[in-house]
């Protein structure tokens, strides 16, 4: 559906950073669904800055970001690498934006949180808090989901839940999924397209990385099994 309507986010000549100082120059992007966008690069290369800029939490240092989804409306959600959970129960955290009770139960089941719904969220382990942060984002049904280092601290069960969520998102082409991670993303039968910040961006007028047929450089997408 997203593809039919075009990219959900389109960046041109984008530079991202903090307090007006650029930490990364981004090749032009046309983000569409159906793939996992993998933002990769070493520490300090601007992965988080890019995700926050796409989410509308940071202003671009230069260039433009055109979105087909609202900012601050729940349509573009950024999930932090160190999740913040609010005081109160897991259920309270999941009902941040008043989803239906059925949706809460479904997402809790998907992320292995069913037995923890009544638990004080701040007493959860780091891995459980990560699952909660992901579940809290997913239950909002965003059009664009930006996840920072999602696989750190997850146990096998949580990892499976997260990957299943990602696969569902790719299959449904909604939400458009952008993931920042140091390590390769090991998704089965899912197209992963890298946005590599370890290399200086080429000419910022380079064509979109979203469509291998239209790109002037070799496709870097990796189909992992």
């Amino acid at each position: 559906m997203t593809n039919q309507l075009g990219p959900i986010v389109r960046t041109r000549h984008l530079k991202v950073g903090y307090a007006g100082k650029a930490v990364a120059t981004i090749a032009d992007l046309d983000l569409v669904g159906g793939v996992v966008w993998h933002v990769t690069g070493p520490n300090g290369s601007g992965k988080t800055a890019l995700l926050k800029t796409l989410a509308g939490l940071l202003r671009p240092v230069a260039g433009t970001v055109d979105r087909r989804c609202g900012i601050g409306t729940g349509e573009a959600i950024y999930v932090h690498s160190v999740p913040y959970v609010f005081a109160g129960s897991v259920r309270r955290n999941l009902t941040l934006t008043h989803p239906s009770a059925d949706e809460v139960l479904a997402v809790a089941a998907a992320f292995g949180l069913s037995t923890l719904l009544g638990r004080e969220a701040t007493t959860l382990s780091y891995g459980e808090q990560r699952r909660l942060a992901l579940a809290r984002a997913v239950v909002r049904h965003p059009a664009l989901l930006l996840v920072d280092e999602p696989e750190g601290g997850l146990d096998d069960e949580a990892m499976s839940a997260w990957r299943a969520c990602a696969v569902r998102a790719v299959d449904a082409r909604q939400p458009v999924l952008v993931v920042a991670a140091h390590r390769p993303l090991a998704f089965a039968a899912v197209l992963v397209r890298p946005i590599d910040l370890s290399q200086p961006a080429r000419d910022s007028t380079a064509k979109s990385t979203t469509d291998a047929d239209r790109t002037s450089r070799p496709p870097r997408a990796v189909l992992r099994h």
Partner: protein
Amino acid sequence: MLAEVGRALALILGGDVEVWQIAGVSLTVSLTAVFGAVAAGLPMAYLLASSGARRARVGLWIAHGLAALPTVVIGLTLYLLLSATGPLGWARLLYTRTAMAAAQFVLALPLVVAVVLGALRRLPPSAHEVLVTHGVTRARQMGWLLWEVKSAVVSGTFLAFSRAFTELGAALIVGGNIRGATRTLTTYIALEYDRGDDARAIALGLILLAVALLTNSVMHVIVGER
């Protein structure tokens, strides 16, 4: 001395009407002021905290400065504003409980703002960012974040009440210590001290001390449980 304390206790336990009426005025005025300070101070603290690091820092600096203002200076300023020749003289509020509550509001507000704003600034930015990206409305963002710093909200409220309830200078200047109207525990203690009625002054002082200790104990219980 012991005899005076004994007489003071007899006044309190004997249900001296005037003593308890004055305590009631003190409570009413201070609670009104603190309720207003909390109602205005919480949104103010939230707006300052969410307006950027620099504004929040300046806001905190100003709040700390105002919290340290001498009460007589606040009383004098309000007196000049409310006196018959002052810009707000038309309101005829001088020597009323409303004027006293206004003075105590000015005392209490910066304390509420300073304590709550300080706590909000210590929250990680991710707390606010989660609310923003999930599409939570501004009003509800404030509710969620204030709940995160509820210990500070409780502390700020009780500290503000303590400052308002125990102050003397502003109440004396804008209230006038009028019997049956604007006479409070602190202004009456000052009066009885001048008159030399030590027992009555001690009785009022004991009530003042008891309320101050009680509110602080309640605050510690509430905050300590979180």
